[in-house]
């Protein structure tokens, strides 16, 4: 349960980071707040800031929102014992890490600029991935009714 809560909190932070970058990409708020380096503008205005016709930050918004929803759903009392939610969170976090690795590669070796917001997002998604993988490795709680012994009537 703790791991799912941690993932939900991380996803919430990541969602707002991505939301800020997406709103900036849409033209809200003037120049991006990125410290003195200015790398964020270079990254955000490069040709790689758009992926399949949409701003990269939008994929972050959708991804983090998906993780947040799944994590919250998995925290329902009925879902707490179901291992499939751990698997689902692990799959989502892995997809996020792979996409982030690709974006980080572009920043370092193609664009040659580092965006602090992107680094922040990379740290969040990596932490989320580690937590989700660790939760997958932890022993599962099984309450499969099909194999549970049927309740017996106590002898009078």
């Amino acid at each position: 349960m703790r791991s799912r809560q941690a993932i939900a909190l991380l996803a919430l932070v990541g969602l707002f980071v991505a939301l800020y970058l997406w709103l900036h990409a849409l033209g809200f708020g003037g120049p991006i707040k990125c410290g003195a380096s200015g790398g964020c503008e270079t990254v955000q205005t490069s040709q790689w800031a758009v992926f399949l016709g949409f701003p990269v930050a939008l994929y972050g918004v959708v991804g983090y929102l998906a993780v947040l929803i799944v994590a919250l759903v998995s925290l329902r009392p009925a879902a707490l014992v179901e291992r499939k939610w751990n698997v689902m969170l692990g799959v989502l976090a892995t997809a996020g890490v792979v996409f982030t690795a690709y974006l980080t590669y572009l920043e370092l070796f193609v664009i040659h600029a580092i965006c602090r917001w992107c680094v922040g997002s990379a740290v969040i998604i990596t932490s989320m991935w580690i937590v989700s993988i660790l939760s997958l490795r932890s022993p599962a709680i099984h309450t499969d009714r099909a194999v549970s012994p049927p309740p017996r009537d106590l002898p009078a």
Partner: protein
Amino acid sequence: MNRFYVVLTVLAVVLGITVFTLLRAGGGAPPAAAGPPPTVRDDGFRGYSLGQGSAPVEVTEYLDFECPVCATFATIQMPTIKEQLINTGRVRWKFRDYPLPIHKYSRFAAHAAQCAGAQGRYFEMQDQLFAHHQWAQTGKDPSSLFRSLAQAAGVDLNAYDVCMQAGRYAQRIEYSRQEGDSLRVDGTPTFFANGKKLAFRRLPGSDDFKAIADSIIAHAPTPKPRH
């Protein structure tokens, strides 16, 4: 209410306020550099030049940094012109600013180039502004981007910031624009060769300038031999 959901709600509110504050803070182009100055003074500056002072042909280009045609010319035609005409000593190329009023950030970009020029980096900054011309299509405030472009051009950002905030070259840029008006510049890029306005039906290429340079050099009076 479960403590976790309290933490989650508080965090969401804090993050929401933070993002809202970041977006509201705005920032943006300093008006002194982005807008026309209230007065105009001639500081004697007549544009940055590429090429040798002894070149027989001087081409003056009135340009607008936000103009896509200027960017196309700078990135596609200029490399050949530099190689074949400027570096060979046949042409000297002078750049003058002509920020068009329809372009929101062209004066600001011209100012960024002038501030870079104050540090001996005008041409590097010009290359950056034209090579990363996406800024001109987004309509977004490019002040942060220009800082990173200036950095890439080798400009000291502290001096650049002071220059931009003060709008140090706003009058110079406006003087150049008014000079263009007086010469009947009606669009960008507009070219003059040895003071004569050049008319093209389309965006000229390096071959057009080669032909013009050849023609001027061929008709130039040859110095008489001394006896």
